[in-house]
């Protein structure tokens, strides 16, 4: 992945920075410049929002056929997590046996390696989730 493409998203990938609409109060992740619900009324009124990092699993799978970058991790759990703020994200669930992930399970954010551009390339970091304490 090109260097600037990943670097640009660091605030969201490292710190779950999204946005909150100053007009209707809805949250978005990644951050948006315009609220899809409010349109023009939200321009200039979007606020920075840092997600709490807590959520619950709404669906999950165990990936067996993985792209090369994820070879070391397979089989790994992929899930859609509904964050406390109401929006959803997709990432891996770690520090848990694949068979023990359930819909509704509370999770919290962890900081992990997402991948790298080969042995000599840049390493990408970001959010994954682990069972909530």
């Amino acid at each position, binding site marked *: 992945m090109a260097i600037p493409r990943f670097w640009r998203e660091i*605030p969201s990938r*490292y*710190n779950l920075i999204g946005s909150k609409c100053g007009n209707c109060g809805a949250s978005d992740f990644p951050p948006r410049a315009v609220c899809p619900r409010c349109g023009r009324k939200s321009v200039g009124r979007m606020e920075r929002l840092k997600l709490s990092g807590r959520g619950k699993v709404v669906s999950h799978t165990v990936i067996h056929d993985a792209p090369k970058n994820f070879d*070391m*991790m397979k089989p790994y759990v992929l899930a859609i997590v509904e964050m406390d703020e109401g929006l959803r994200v997709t990432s891996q669930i770690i520090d848990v046996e694949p068979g023990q992930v359930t819909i509704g399970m509370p999770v919290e954010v962890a*900081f*992990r*390696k997402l991948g790298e551009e080969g042995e000599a390339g840049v390493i990408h*970091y970001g959010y*994954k989730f682990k069972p909530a304490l």
Partner: protein
Amino acid sequence: MTAGIVSYGGYVPRYRITPKEIGAVWGVDGEAMGKGLNIRSKSVPGPDEDVITMSVEAARSALRKAPHIDPKDVGAIYVGSESHPYAVKPTATIVAEAIEAAPILTAADFEFACKAGTAAIQTCMGLTMSDMYRYGMAIGADTSQGAPSDALEYSASAGAAAFVIGKDLAIATLNHTISYTTDTPDFWRREGQAYPSHGGRFTGEPAYFKHVLSCANLLFKRAGTRAEDYDFAVFHQPNGKFPVRAGKTLGFLDKQLETGLLVREIGNTYSAAIMVGLCAILDIAKPGQRIFAVAYGSGAGSDGFDITVTDGIDAIDRKAGRTMRAMVEDVKFLDYATYAKYRKKIRMKEG
């Protein structure tokens, strides 16, 4: 006014492997090796973990305990390790972004074998005592490798600890610090080499013990104390024997050494070793209790610290994030094959 520890946080990955499992592969009585080293298991980083991820987890844990710390007031971040993921591009910058301390701060990575983290603590003490910055963050973290079938394979493990150093609201004061440093080639790794080399038995008397004991005695002298004045003592722990021997030589008792001696369960976390031991002590220490800590890094040197816990420790939330004990006890045991895979000891196809 002296600097102190304002908050602390540790991190240990949950994977473990036993000496028995390792020995079986190399035709060695692993259980006997383990007994000889006083190590029952060591920690192994997962495939998506490295010094950077562990440093971030430890740093975030420290901040979670003390939410009064504004990350923007952390003026310096130093990460000491001998297994930084990049040879050039500091771990400290990624930690800075991940705790939202960036961009107005200074940062750098340190190396001094197993005492790079404590060297960072001393640097942060200087910066905060001189009022250059309000807080400095010192991190020791490693995912150290032992060469396959080498003695170090039974002990080299992974962990991280982060200390926020400053003057206000300290939970423990760093009353004194002193160091003892010489050119002693007991353990080293040349640039580009995958595994370190060491001088076998030379790593004992002329290296570990000479520096730890010399530093400890200098510290006693500076502080005007003796072993019985302390509630806890923690020494660098390359195995479970050296720190106990050093401690006993200096007059410490088992009960003073017990809490900080994590090596028996998680192995030698190198730059994090003494610091995770300190975290375990701070997790349970009471105001007024005193701690004696001497780190050791090959090459060689020792950093010693005389620490007193303050009332401030009750003002932070020591249960936020996880305690060291909880992390040490959250385990998943691996077989050697999985361990070799995670530690990238298996040669994969290029391209």
